[in-house]
């Protein structure tokens, strides 16, 4: 369900990318945005006082969600519609006895302080109602983007990311088989206010699909702890991880095992890994792997960029929880995944001491496999062993002297 202007935009994206997808619904109080939407199921909230407009749609909304067991709300906070409608709809849905998950975008700070405050207030309300909340902070996403990034591009990235997290949440909550992530698992990871959530996803086909998808997911900026070169390092020490593997029917048991053990290796043995496996894709399609983890325990404050997450101390004041969500959406894996990776790298570039290592790692993966470029990767303990050892160790050589 897309709520508010941003929610409508995102569901439009989804509807265009996967035509025929059922159960999409847009709700807005802006008739223009609604009529322009490609999603056919719409509920228009009368303009004016949100409280009243909202009562007006109670019946309509009730019919729309009847028979559903869960709803995933999606929208941007900070605006006029999403900030009011999202918490209100969440309460309404909850009153119908439905599992409610929300994924919301927090505004850029340049959009104004009042927008931000409005958004934070709404987020707190959402946490009290929803079973699971995933938050994308636009600020963090754009923090390290090159200064030349167009404004439009920054918003596109944010929309894309929101869409990606939306689809992943939706998949997780729809509990398809054969291995399910239960709703209580979801609640344990995403339902605790004040936890920091990490999100990454990857998609790959071909003989080495699992490793490639894992690598892509781990490289999502929000899965790499700032200042750490190892992909996926943000997962180190988290108490629980949700892993969703979606693939064609030939997705093998060994592949699932491999994914779990790789995550366990990074996250540590005490980490609980809840795995969901969906094998409902058509044969030959690539596998999609999504990882969500929460820092668990007390709230993590928003530290200046460059502070390691693990060092962040619990905070007690009223700063709203930060949940970071990022995924490289399947359809844009080329462009978007690249952009977001760059973002993360640039972010860490603000820490001079660690910058060098970061860049070293980046170069290797793409160019230095040499003759093994097309062969199956040999990845041990997160290192691609086909890349020359001296490169991975960052050892400088004297270049050959041409006669």
């Amino acid at each position, binding site marked *: 369900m897309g709520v508010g202007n941003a929610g409508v935009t995102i569901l439009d994206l989804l509807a265009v990318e996967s035509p025929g997808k059922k159960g999409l619904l847009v709700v807005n109080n802006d008739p223009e945005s609604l009529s322009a939407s490609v999603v056919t199921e719409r509920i228009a909230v009368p303009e004016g006082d949100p409280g009243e407009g909202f009562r007006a749609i109670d019946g309509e909304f009730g019919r729309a969600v009847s028979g559903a067991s869960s709803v995933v709300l999606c929208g941007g906070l900070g605006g006029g519609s999403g900030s009011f409608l999202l918490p209100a709809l969440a309460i309404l849905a909850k009153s119908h006895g439905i599992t409610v998950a929300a994924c919301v975008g927090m505004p850029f700070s340049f959009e104004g302080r009042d927008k931000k405050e409005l958004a934070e207030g709404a987020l707190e309300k959402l946490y009290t109602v929803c079973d699971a909340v995933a938050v994308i902070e636009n600020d963090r996403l754009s923090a390290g983007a090159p200064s030349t990034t167009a404004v439009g591009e920054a918003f596109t990235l944010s929309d894309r990311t929101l869409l990606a997290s939306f689809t992943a949440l939706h998949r997780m909550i729809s509990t398809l088989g054969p291995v399910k992530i239960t709703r209580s698992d979801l609640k344990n990871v995403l339902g605790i206010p004040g936890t920091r959530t990490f999100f990454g996803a990857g998609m790959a086909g071909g003989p080495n699909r699992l490793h490639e998808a894992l690598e892509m997911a781990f490289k999502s900026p929000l899965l790499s702890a700032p200042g750490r070169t190892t992909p996926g390092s943000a997962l180190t020490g988290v108490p629980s991880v949700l892993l969703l593997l979606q693939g064609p029917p030939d997705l093998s*048991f060994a592949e699932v*095992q491999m994914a779990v053990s790789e995550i366990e290796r990074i996250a540590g043995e005490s980490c609980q890994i809840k795995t969901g496996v969906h094998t409902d894709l058509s044969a030959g399609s690539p596998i999609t792997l999504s990882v969500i983890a929460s820092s668990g325990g007390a709230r993590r404050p928003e530290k200046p960029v460059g502070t390691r997450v693990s060092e962040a101390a619990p905070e007690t004041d009223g700063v709203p929880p930060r949940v970071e969500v990022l995924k490289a959406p399947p359809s844009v894996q080329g462009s978007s995944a690249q952009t977001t990776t760059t973002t993360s790298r640039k972010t860490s570039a603000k820490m001079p001491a660690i910058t060098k290592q970061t860049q070293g790692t980046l170069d290797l993966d793409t160019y230095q496999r040499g003759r093994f470029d097309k062969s199956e990767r040999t990845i041990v303990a997160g290192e691609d062993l086909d890349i020359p050892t001296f490169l991975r160790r960052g050892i400088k050589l004297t270049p*050959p002297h041409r006669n």
Partner: protein
Amino acid sequence: MSKEQIFVGLEIGTTKICVIVAESRAEDQISILGVGETPSRGIRKGEIVDMATVTECVREAIVDAEEKTNVEIGNVWVAITGSHLRSFNNRGTLILPHPRQIEQADLDMVQTNAKEIALPPPNTFLHTILQAYHLDGNRNVIDPLESEGMQLEADFHIVHGVKTRITNHLRCVEALNLEIEDVVLSSLASAQVVVTQHQKDIGVLVVDIGGGTTDYLIYLDGAVRHSGVLAIGGDHITNDISVGLKLPIARAEILKIQEGSATDPDASEGGVITLKNDPGFLGCDIDRRSLGTIIHCRVKEIFELLKRDVENAGGDLLGLLGAGVMITGGCARLRGIAAVASDVLDQAVQVSTARNVGGALQTFENPQYSTAIGLTKYARLITKDSHPEGMLERIAQGFGGIFKRGSR
């Protein structure tokens, strides 16, 4: 019919395809009659990536061997490696309803029990190697047959791998109408000729570093205790040189063989290696220390990974190796490799070639051939074990009749 029997070992390696034709001799000995060999194409890290090309290469190697030895090759023993191979130790237990003499069927049963373990679905068993029998708590019974007892236990080292990859490996042999006698883990084959029974008893680590993979195997108390495959080999060193010094692969390979050394470059003298102009290659000066660094880093890493794997297997295996480490395989010829291995593993390390083998001497003094020669030795041992009746019985069963010398 002479009592000699002929065994053919085929190793489809990343660098070369090698066929060894050997003849059985008295007391488990073998004697090499000849070697067929072709450079490999279509193989990466020990696994086939281009079936048609590999099949052609195997055919050339077989024909080469047939021409050199004048033996018509019909049955072969094939070595297999690849990063998909895994191993573990497991114990099978059989409890009889009442004490009685142990029969062959009981031994088979206990082996079946040990294999009752859920492998990942794509995998299949490759080897179930006996480590020891225990009878009614009496440990390490050598042969429980006909002893009386009630509780029979047996420890096995079990090797398994992805079924399709194993069958692909075999398919290019079958395509040539060759009969496959058995498939043998590369390191197990190599170990048959590079270490002695005594070394197996007191504990030894055999490391076979080939072009695409590093295969290793630990013997302790005369039994296989651990084995593994690392998908890194000499190819990686060559590739590292090629990437690091910006040389074509072929050039990098030559440089590795002629000038390469795994010795710690800090300890070696510097200097410059001048590469001459070639058509399509502009000559250049290579810093010897840089070359050394590239090779040293990689070789050290191979042994570090190996060490980590052995340590993860538990039981402080490295601490129990009385005979240290034996390195073989094509990469064993790299200068300084034993010193690096010794540093990392903290063991006495030797480079070893096939021993206790008779015949074409020049052949087996090259560690490249350890696996293929080992296959024939393995074949000799197995054939004797499973057919105590002797040759006549075996021929009656329809085997062996094809091994007629001079039929071409």
